């Protein structure tokens, strides 16, 4: 009885954090029922996550940009442009994949830092500065693809980033072996870190949740990881896109919650003047956040170009708005200082699930836009309402 009460209170206190997870579950269940289980099939989930990848990595960077009270509209076409540059390097210049990728990521950082320069040092509002960037990169994308039109990439290694899967090694009952190992490792690392965390807290004599709840939480989370792994292993296993996405989330989640840098980012977002007087270099943080955004835009460009196996003249169109939508669905607040990296990924997956599910159901594109708009508005309304309650 006590355990149930404690669980109830936990959910009540954290409704804002859990809100989007609940929304995701509702969306998944709805589509699964409406499509007679087709939605949750291994193949579909694998496709869904792959199609969310290039927006998800943008949404992660965008969340941090919004946390420090700015916005970056240039990322869509920057991604398209950098994808085209990657294609040119690979096809026309004959540069190897392993050189191309660092070059493109580096270029992304440079673009981001330039945005940072405009915003932090010159003092142009981010909306305007990056709107200018958006136009410039759109033009640049057209410029570099003008003569050739769509650039087809025939480099298998590069194309694998968007279409390939981690090697299986061998199959067990038709399941992807290495993927199972990855999932198992994920569960072990998760349980280990939770337990050591709890031990540490107890060592400091802090309050911790009761043992029952703790075990319940471990089991629940492990079951989810196991289930996703099992679903993916039933098709081709973890794709490289999913692995990259996971790495980005893990690294950014860690950076934003556990490090001094992360704390400084949230401090700057929460109150820039106070951050300055606290000895935090606000400019430097702005540069770093925009720089990281640029790098993730480059990564997004790589993922998208590789997924299409070609660079097109319209690549990157509206990516920035999809990323912003995902970030807001994921719980970021434009007032600054609030928003989680994990939320951004969930937001991106929510938006991708909607598109995917509605496609399966054959919903017309006109309705799809309206429904996605409604969900975005609903997410922000929910956020505002739950915040008022406190």
């Amino acid at each position, binding site marked *: 009885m006590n355990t149930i009460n404690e669980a109830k209170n936990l959910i009540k206190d954290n409704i804002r954090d859990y809100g989007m997870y609940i929304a995701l579950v509702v969306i998944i269940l709805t589509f699964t029922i409406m499509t007679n289980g087709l939605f949750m099939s291994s193949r579909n989930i694998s496709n869904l996550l792959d199609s969310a990848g290039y927006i998800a990595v943008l949404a992660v960077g965008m969340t941090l940009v919004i946390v420090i009270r700015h916005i970056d509209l240039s990322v869509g076409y920057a991604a398209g442009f950098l994808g085209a540059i990657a294609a040119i390097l690979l096809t026309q210049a004959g540069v190897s994949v392993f050189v191309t990728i660092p070059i493109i990521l580096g270029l992304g950082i440079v673009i981001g830092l330039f945005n940072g320069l405009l915003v932090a040092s010159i003092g142009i509002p981010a909306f305007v500065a990056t709107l200018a960037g958006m136009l410039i990169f759109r033009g640049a994308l057209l410029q570099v693809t003008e003569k050739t039109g769509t650039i087809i990439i025939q480099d298998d290694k590069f194309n694998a980033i968007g279409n390939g899967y981690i090697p299986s090694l061998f199959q067990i009952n038709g399941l992807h072996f290495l993927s199972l190992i990855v999932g198992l490792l994920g569960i072990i690392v998760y349980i280990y870190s939770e337990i050591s965390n709890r031990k*540490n*807290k107890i*060592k*400091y004599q*802090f309050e911790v949740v009761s043992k029952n709840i703790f075990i319940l939480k471990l089991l629940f989370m492990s079951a989810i990881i196991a289930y996703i792994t099992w679903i993916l292993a039933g098709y081709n296993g973890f794709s490289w896109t999913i692995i990259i996405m996971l790495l980005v989330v893990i690294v950014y989640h860690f950076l934003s919650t*556990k*490090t*001094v*840098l992360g*704390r*400084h980012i*949230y*401090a700057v977002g*929460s*109150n820039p*003047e*106070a*951050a*300055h*007087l*606290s*000895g*935090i*270099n606000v400019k430097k943080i702005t540069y770093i956040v925009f720089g990281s955004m640029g790098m993730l835009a480059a990564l997004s460009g790589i993922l998208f170009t590789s997924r299409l196996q070609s660079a097109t003249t319209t690549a990157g169109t509206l990516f920035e708005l999809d990323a912003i939508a995902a970030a807001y669905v994921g719980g970021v607040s434009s*007032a*600054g*200082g*609030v928003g989680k990296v994990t939320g951004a990924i969930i937001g991106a997956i929510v938006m991708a699930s909607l598109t995917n599910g509605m496609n399966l159901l054959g919903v017309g594109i006109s309705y799809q836009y309206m429904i996605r708009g409604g969900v975005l508005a609903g997410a922000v309304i929910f956020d505002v309402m739950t915040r008022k309650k*406190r």
Partner: protein
Amino acid sequence: MQNYILEMNQISKEFSGVKALSDVNFKVEKGEIHCLIGENGAGKSTLMKVLSGVHPYGTYSGDIIFEGKIQTFNKISDSVKAGIAIIYQELALFPDLTVYENIFAGNEVKRGGVIDWNQTIVQAKEMLNKVKLDVNPDTLVKDLGVGKRQLIEIAKALSKNVKLLILDEPTAALNEDDSENLLNLLQELKSQGITCIMISHKLKEVIHIADRATVLRDGQTICTLDSKKDEITEAVIIKNMVGREINDIYPKRPEQKIGKKILELHNWSAYDPQLGRNIVKNINMHVNEGEIVGISGLMGSGRTELALSIFGNAKGYKLQGEFIFYGSHRAFKHPNEAIKAGIAYVTEDRKGDGLFLSQDIKNNISASNLKAISQNGLINDNEEIKIADEYRKSLYIKASSVEQSVGNLSGGNQQKVSLGKWLFVSPKLLILDEPTRGIDVGAKFEIYSVMNKLIREGMSIIMISSELGEVLGMSDRIYVMAQAEIKGELASGEATQEKIMQLATQ
């Protein structure tokens, strides 16, 4: 039979189970100046919010009788219609609009649905006359000082035919001159038949101006004092506010050994390129180890600017002159450098540039010294909670845990978090800018005690304050500033309120 304009009977109000007001009785006579006094969290603001309809009818229990009728205000505009106007501590003016636009904002002078600007200006002048403010109605509000803005708020209220004017700590941000002005104006309005409720922490003002005064404590009415019958004195008010006798609100400290000079400024000036003038001029001062140096002066005399120029030139001034801190002759270029060298600055505007309101107590306390709780850039969460909790206890911060959001704390507790944040960097020189503004007597005493403890441990403190009593009560030495310069230096023994005011108004 007394002639009450307002009777609030048995008012109770709860916030999620916590009683903010319980059976409060509050009666205001027609045409009087009635002061409402109480510690922070005593329920003054809540009571006024109930009255003005911020908390709509039905969310509280009890009756509000205004001009003989039971009122059921559902929103602020209902109470405004009835003739009640509140002027909050944080003024609600539009800085980029003119004076006349501000006065009639939301109450425009219309003819046939179109604003009649000429008539607006004529009427605005009338209102400005009433509040004795001599400014061109065309002036932008952002170009006016706080004192004048306050008067414009009152003019705005008068334009709505206010019968009951409520002022929430109107003089908190004003210097002595402007305060005096404002109080005189209130007397004047009283003679015109306008009733006034004033919330104030400044007891001298209360004694000076109040016809009657009601003291609230812990959401209850403690007493109502009548200047005609009772003698209203500071001692009586304070006793009722805190329910115990405070003989001396400035804690005594044993004779302090003053050490060597740690900070020296010679011909120190700061030029603000945005304002286009020197905001600090030819300052010569020093601070010794283990002393409290008070900086007194009126609002806008350059005290805060001086502090900021010392604290890593936080606002990007052009600096001139000699700066010596612990033998080093280099002035700091960023707050970061100042913090590293051992200077901390507790801002006068804790909400504006002091705290991270959306974050919790621990994140605020650790913000300036994450180095101390991290290794290779990795924060030790548990260490952070432990340290923050130590400050919570030692500074008597009233909060359920250090993971409570700072935005939900009361002013005094926020100030303590702000102080805790800077104590955590263990500075050698602590600059306190208006350390007790807008906080209650109990919290003030606690902050003074902490200051005494710090100098015993060898820290030096610069305390900037508008409250003369505080400067006199706490400082070893006092510099008085006016017009961006230091006008005089007084030892604590020779300083008096008169002497300070004389220097400050030069």
